[in-house]
């Protein structure tokens, strides 16, 4: 974390919402601002009181391009979303939001609550953090608002200026913690290759593994693909350098770092019957151009060339993949072998001889 000293010399601060965005109801804007301030008051002695007239410590306004006497300007849609000024008089403590953005309460556009919470970090004396999981990281990353957005890095930063909340039993909402990479019991929601990398997904996070060297990187899924939800259930790389991600009855297609327009779509557009509600795991066999979708104890086969489901499916997984008798959490193909994951175990399967070669711990790819 980084700080701009000094912070405010008082714990009771006032804020005023000077104007509104037409993108959201006034009530939703009020709620988003109040909730964004509460993020910081939950972990410090700070108390925020709203005023409706005059000059508050934190003046909150929406503007476009050059706005008022502000020394900084906005740049139209995307790019810079908002800015704020460190504690002080005049512009000190003020937060401005670019009205050319699409402000929302959800994951579409830019979530006002999340952006406001970040800007109020500046208004209280924090500068940017290079910790990608921190709220004070400069780039926008969508996190479900139902989760507490402050990382340990953010909390350490703000408490280095104001201290922690006095006498509060540590009722702090659980801060999102990162999964332990070398947890021997680790399991995965989904796994896919991405060109020469292997991507392991779990909750809000993903690990990037470069086979052949010891590098394992833990990232937030939303740092790469802001519009993807956490809790992806299946993923696979097809034959067109694209990745498909599945959650519930929806799927997204990613090309490079971009989610293709028109997604998410319903999985029945792939040919699944209405009764199929989710996908457990999927893998595309690069040698045959066929993708297997595993659901419960059965699997479907999809032909990537004809873009259609093959007839005669579903079939029982264990009949065609002897030894793979448990629900498949995740599966991917590497150097011709399939790696099936269930809980903390994985099975290396040779599709040419249709045999399990060996059983391994799921964490074996992380060089623990």
């Amino acid at each position, binding site marked *: 974390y980084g700080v701009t000293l000094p912070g405010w010399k008082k714990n009771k601060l006032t804020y005023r919402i000077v104007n509104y965005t037409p993108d959201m109801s006034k009530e939703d804007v009020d709620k988003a601002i109040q909730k964004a301030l509460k993020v910081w008051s939950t972990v410090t002695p700070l108390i925020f009181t709203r005023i409706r007239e005059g000059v508050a410590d934190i003046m909150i306004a929406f503007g476009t391009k050059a706005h008022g006497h502000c020394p900084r300007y906005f740049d139209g849609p995307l790019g810079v979303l908002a800015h704020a000024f460190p504690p002080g008089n005049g512009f000190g403590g003020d937060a401005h939001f670019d009205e050319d953005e699409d402000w929302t309460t959800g994951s579409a556009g830019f979530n006002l609550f999340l952006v406001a919470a970040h800007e109020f970090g500046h208004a209280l004396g924090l500068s940017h953090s290079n910790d*990608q999981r921190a709220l004070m990281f*400069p780039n926008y990353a969508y996190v479900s608002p139902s989760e507490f957005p402050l990382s340990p890095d953010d909390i350490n930063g703000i408490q280095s200026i104001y201290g922690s909340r006095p006498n509060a039993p540590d009722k702090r909402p659980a801060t999102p913690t990162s999964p332990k990479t070398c947890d021997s019991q680790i399991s995965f929601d989904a796994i896919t290759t991405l060109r020469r990398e292997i991507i392991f997904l779990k909750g809000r996070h993903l690990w990037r593994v470069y086979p052949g060297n010891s590098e394992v990187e833990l990232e937030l899924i939303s740092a790469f693909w802001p519009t993807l939800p956490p809790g992806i259930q299946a993923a696979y790389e097809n034959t067109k350098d694209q990745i498909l991600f599945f959650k519930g009855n929806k799927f997204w297609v990613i090309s490079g770092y971009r989610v293709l327009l028109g997604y998410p779509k319903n999985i029945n557009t792939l040919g699944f019957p209405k009764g199929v509600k989710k996908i457990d795991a999927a893998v595309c066999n690069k040698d045959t151009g066929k993708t297997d979708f595993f659901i419960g104890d059965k699997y479907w086969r999809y032909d990537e060339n004809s873009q259609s489901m093959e007839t005669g499916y579903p079939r029982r997984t264990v009949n065609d993949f002897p030894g793979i008798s448990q629900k498949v959490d995740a599966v991917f193909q590497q150097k011709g072998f399939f790696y099936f994951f269930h809980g903390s175990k994985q099975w290396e399967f040779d599709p040419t001889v249709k045999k399990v070669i060996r059983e391994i711990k799921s964490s074996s790819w992380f060089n623990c």
Partner: protein
Amino acid sequence: SNALPIHPEKHNNEEDEKLVQDYLNQFYTVEPDPKQLGWKTHDESTAEKLQKMQQFFGLKVTGKPDPATLEMMKKPRCGVPDVGL
């Protein structure tokens, strides 16, 4: 007219160059402190600023606007500078 068509790759390079300059000027240029006395530090070169930005974002520190760096610069973000505060 007989004007030569702009070569798309050249056009892209110019766009990328402007993106890099705007980004570094906005987020990686330390605003001079009017109250500073004595020697002023030298103005950083574009490569030095790029290295600082790449270091901050955990990218490979090349000092060159490689694709990963350009991709990072295109992400929506906060308008507060990353340095100098």
